[in-house]
């Protein structure tokens, strides 16, 4: 604290020395305002690029097949209606929706339970198995899932799960495990050692420690991992494409794709289907934006 005032004074003196030579105070302020304006313009252009397609989609979904072709696509004129929403709901979107909810929920629960248990065992380092597990998981982190679709298709077919929701749950959970364990490890590692030891001395077994200490303390990282995995499972297209076939086991991303084949030029119906499929995520985003942002970036930021 004693050194701070001289330092500031020194810098202020230097500022007096440098600033006038460069430009007047007024010029500086004008320049800052100019920079602010340029930044505002740049940011606003990007905002338009982000929002315009979504606005187009919302508007188009409120038209009929006929009025979509004739009306100005950028203005809410020429008659808006919600009939296409009921069209797609009657055409099986509800079923795809329920499938997506089941698959996403099952994947998130399985991944959270398995990854947290694995992380706990890995930081306990009580046997060779935990070290081997970590090495195997780190190895798998780098393998792109796209490269595995052929063997996954073969395995799922051989164990009789082709065209079932279980096939999606199993493969997507397996794919989510490495990254989930690594995110959780960096969190579980920071749970104070003393707490675990104290419980251990009090005679608590490993299970007891896991359930009444590790699990409750890990709630924030569980939310992060749940959102990250939930989002990628909800939006996954490739694995459903390869592992399912019938309408009864199609999830939303695949169902939307099927709609496109089915409806072809009925663009309003397709736009309505896309918008209905995104509603849960929008609700989630509005309700818990902070956790959502953390979940999205949780993979790389610790």
């Amino acid at each position, binding site marked *: 604290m004693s050194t701070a005032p001289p330092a500031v004074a020194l*810098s202020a003196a*230097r500022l007096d020395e440098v600033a006038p030579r460069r430009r007047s105070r007024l010029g500086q302020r004008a320049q800052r305002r100019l920079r602010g304006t340029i*930044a505002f313009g*740049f*940011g606003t252009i*990007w905002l338009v690029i*982000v*929002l*315009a*397609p979504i606005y*187009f989609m919302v508007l188009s979904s409120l038209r009929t097949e006929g009025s979509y*072709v004739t009306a*100005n696509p950028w203005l809410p004129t020429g008659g808006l209606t919600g009939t296409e929403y009921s069209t797609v709901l009657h055409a099986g979107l509800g079923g795809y929706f329920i499938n997506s909810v089941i698959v996403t929920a099952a994947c998130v629960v399985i991944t959270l339970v398995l990854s947290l*248990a*694995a992380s*706990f*065992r*890995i930081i*306990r380092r009580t046997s*060779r*198995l935990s070290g*081997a597990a*970590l090495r195997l*998981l780190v190895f*798998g982190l*780098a*393998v*792109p899932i*796209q*490269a*595995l*679709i*052929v*063997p996954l298709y073969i*395995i799922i077919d051989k164990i009789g799960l082709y065209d079932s929701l279980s096939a999606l749950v*199993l493969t997507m*959970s*397996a794919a989510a*495990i490495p990254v989930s364990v690594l995110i959780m490890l960096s969190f579980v*590692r920071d749970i*104070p050692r003393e*707490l675990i030891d104290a*419980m*251990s*001395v009090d005679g608590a077994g*490993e299970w007891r420690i896991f359930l009444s200490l590790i699990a409750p303390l890990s709630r924030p990282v569980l939310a992060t991992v749940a959102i990250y995995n939930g989002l990628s499972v909800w*939006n996954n*297209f*490739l694995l459903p494409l390869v592992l399912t076939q019938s309408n009864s086991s199609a999830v939303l*991303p*695949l169902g*939307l794709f099927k709609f*496109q084949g089915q409806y072809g030029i009925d663009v309003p119906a*397709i736009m309505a289907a896309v918008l209905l*499929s*995104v509603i849960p995520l*929008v609700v989630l985003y509005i309700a818990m934006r902070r956790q959502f*942002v953390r979940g*999205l970036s949780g993979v*790389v930021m610790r």
Partner: protein
Amino acid sequence: MTPTPTLTSPGVPLAKARPRPNQANRPVGRGSYRSADLVGLLPTLVLYGGLILVPIAIAIGLSFYNWNGVGALTFVGASNWSRFFSDSIALHSLEVTFLLAGVSWVVQTPLSMALGLFVSGRQRYRAVYSALYLLPLLLSTTGIALMWQALLDPNFGGIAWLGTHWHLSFLVQNWLGGNSTALWTIVALIAWQFVPFHTLLYQMGRRQIPQVLYEAAALDGVTPLKQFIYVTLPQMRYTIVVSSTLMIVGSLTYFDIIYILTNGGPGDTTRVLSLDMYQAAFQNTTFGYASVLAVVLGVIGIVVALGLVRLTGFGSMASQREGVA
């Protein structure tokens, strides 16, 4: 017992020099640890091993066989591999893949960085912008593809409408069907989808830079451009590496939008390696040859991802843990 704040001593490097439970005075027998490890790790390892590690082995093994999916396996040695190196379509798709990844990086990185720095500013309106910028991340790839397909339709799409009514004739194009436009359109759509995510990363990276550095620079009369070059860029190198690697690995293995919108066309102009592999497997039912393409795709992904491990120190963290196993 409840965890009290006094016990939670922050800043203590707990990972280091902690005694192994089975060396210290352990309250329970070794057997209970072993069973806990089995129960805690085995389900994970079975699921992950069976559906990630075994598939890796199958992909490599199958690349030496011919198989149509139903009949018998025929061992063909390295002939699938030699076919790959003389397969002009596959080699072209490899070129398209690298071109797509390279151009995507060049387009997305400066844009994401600029937007990330923009939204990390303190003005209230920028927080609102930042929340809206994330909206594309909520849409599924299929949703994004279908939305843009409608927008880019040369007859009834929103872009073509603007071109016709505002006399901007260059906007009236068969964006996804034209030989010269298809790949660049795909690049733009991928950027629309992923720039929001990378903006978020750069925003967080910028927030982690101590404000003192900028205050000191401003007091010394450093111009904003030089602040960016000498403070922001070096301080954000971790973010840049992470974002770039995710971006490049992601584009190298990109499949969804291309499959839905162009299916590799027109001609082979947007045919990427992952699409080539998908078609070899599920349209031509040449599973052996598809496995060659899969292994190539996997190796490319791993090599680039290893770059991340090397450059960010992620690897040193992992090896520390490996060492104590």
